[in-house]
């Protein structure tokens, strides 16, 4: 009986587990192996270099700059998206009329890819020439056109990079917050009203936010992990026929050009990937510990 069950277990779970092992664990282990070799343009290298790739990648100014770009990007995108999507959820949750309409409109950008959004932002909204929409609006007020993306000084590209992701993601997180808000027991608000708490800031601070703790923890974790994986919008906003500029390279853009660009330094790229994978695993576990379990919400 037990043997039969084990057999059936593997019939159901085996294909998925095997595929996952083959396409996640095998590449990871292979990558760890590659990171100890000099692997230019080859996946079966023979020249062992020990920790050479690790010291090289950690000493590489571009890699360190990539990590700094990520930290800066996270510092912008996480609080902005958090506050904005929570505000949207609070407003949509309380609006009486056309609630479904508002929810749909804010969520609609989630159907767009980062590529499409980056293209709209780069070629029309924040086009650096006079006919870009932002520059047109500036022009109405007598302002001179701004080169939004083509210069690191002043770094206007941050505005472009942050708004494009905000537009794409705010609705998604709004949905998460709305779900969290729905789970809050209305009795809590009634009790607060009886106690004389006026709706508004006090209720938000003492009831809504504490009740949303688990949702908030999940949202912040997703925001950080997603920011860490930023590639699509940076690549499509900043690279052009001449290639990618030397500034604003988040970690994955660095990896892409190191491992798959000219020279295909897969050893160095693998060492970089291993370092990044470790960073993200530590961040995920650390944050889960710090913000408490993300399982329960609204006491349920």
């Amino acid at each position, binding site marked *: 009986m037990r043997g039969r*069950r*084990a057999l*059936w*277990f593997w*019939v*159901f*779970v085996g294909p*998925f587990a095997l*595929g*996952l*092992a*083959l*396409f*996640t664990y095998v*590449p*990871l282990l292979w*990558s760890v192996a590659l990171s100890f070799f000099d692997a230019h343009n080859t*996946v079966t290298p023979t020249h062992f270099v020990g920790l050479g790739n690790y010291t090289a990648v950690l000493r590489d100014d571009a890699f360190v700059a990539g990590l700094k770009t990520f930290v800066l990007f996270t510092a912008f995108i996480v609080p902005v998206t958090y506050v904005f999507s929570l505000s949207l959820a609070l*407003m949509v949750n309380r609006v009486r009329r056309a609630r479904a309409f508002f929810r*749909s*409109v*804010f*969520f*609609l*950008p*989630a*159907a*767009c890819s*980062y*590529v*499409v*959004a980056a*293209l*709209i*932002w*780069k*070629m*029309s909204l924040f086009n650096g020439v006079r*006919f870009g*929409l932002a520059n047109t609006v500036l022009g109405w007020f007598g302002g001179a056109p701004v080169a939004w993306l083509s210069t690191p000084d002043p770094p206007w590209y941050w505005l472009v990079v942050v708004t494009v992701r905000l*537009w794409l993601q705010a609705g998604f997180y709004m949905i*998460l917050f709305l*779900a969290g808000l729905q789970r809050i027991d209305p009795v809590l608000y009634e009790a607060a009203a009886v106690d004389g708490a006026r709706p508004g800031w006090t209720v938000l601070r003492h009831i809504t936010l504490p009740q949303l703790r688990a949702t908030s923890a*999940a949202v912040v974790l997703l925001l950080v992990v997603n920011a860490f*994986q930023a*590639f699509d919008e940076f690549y499509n906003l900043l*690279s*052009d026929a001449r290639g990618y500029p030397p500034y604003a390279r988040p970690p*994955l853009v660095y*990896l892409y050009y190191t*491992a*798959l660009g000219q020279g295909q330094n*897969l050893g160095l790229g*693998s060492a*970089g990937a291993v370092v*990044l994978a470790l960073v*993200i695993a530590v961040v*995920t576990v650390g944050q889960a510990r710090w913000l408490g379990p*993300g399982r329960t*919400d609204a006491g349920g």
Partner: protein
Amino acid sequence: MDDALVWAGRALRTALLTALALLFLVPFYLLVRNGLAGEEDITSPEWTFFPHEVRWGNVGELFGDPSVPFARSLLNSALIAVATTLGTLLLASLAGYGLARIPYRHANKVFHGILGTLLVPAAVTFVPSFVLVSSLGWVSTLRGLIVPTLFPAFACFVFRQYFLGFPRELEDAAQVDGLGYWRTYWLVVVPNARPVFAAVGTIVFLGAWNSFLWPLVIGQDQSAWTVQVALSSFTTAQVVRLHELFVAAAVSVLPLLLVFLCFQRWIVAGVERSGID
């Protein structure tokens, strides 16, 4: 006085939401405006809110452009998205059911092994995955674009959680009738679990259609480009033809907007499940 305050607050909220909603629609407006305009209308220093002459011919021009295989890339994206969705639903739901319902000594270890991959997102491991796929000789093939993406841990996790909460009585009745795990699954469980299939399916479909980094890495020949890679090639081309680029972007978004509007309920359900649970 309080009534007036409440009313004012409500009016303010609605006004703010309306303004934000209009702002959120601006990018869609730009997509349509630029996609249907002539190049002169787009680059004119005077802003025109709508093109002087609506040029549906841009669509024909896009599909006739020999330098970008747009029709082929649309077809590739459709094939990849459909195959990825069906494959993921099949594999992940089976695994989720097995983990939730079939007692097995090492089930917990297997589950943790699957869950552990959530700690290392696929995007971070694209270099090692590329290494593996290229040594299989799958670069620039649909296989290489589809197969490695068929095993997202989140989908398996969502199915497992769903099946854990599935009413056991139905399955018990099936077992009494002499159905084994396999037939119970297909005849009793799947027909009663449509919401979770719809939720996971739409999320996987959107993700597959919109994904960029993996197709960029694997689709090195034009014949294996997805629509996102084709779009991206416009922005990095030597000569940028704006009207063609925007009509291409609009065409690439249109099917997704339809999917999105038709399945919004399921997408919302899927987001709630995969985001929090």
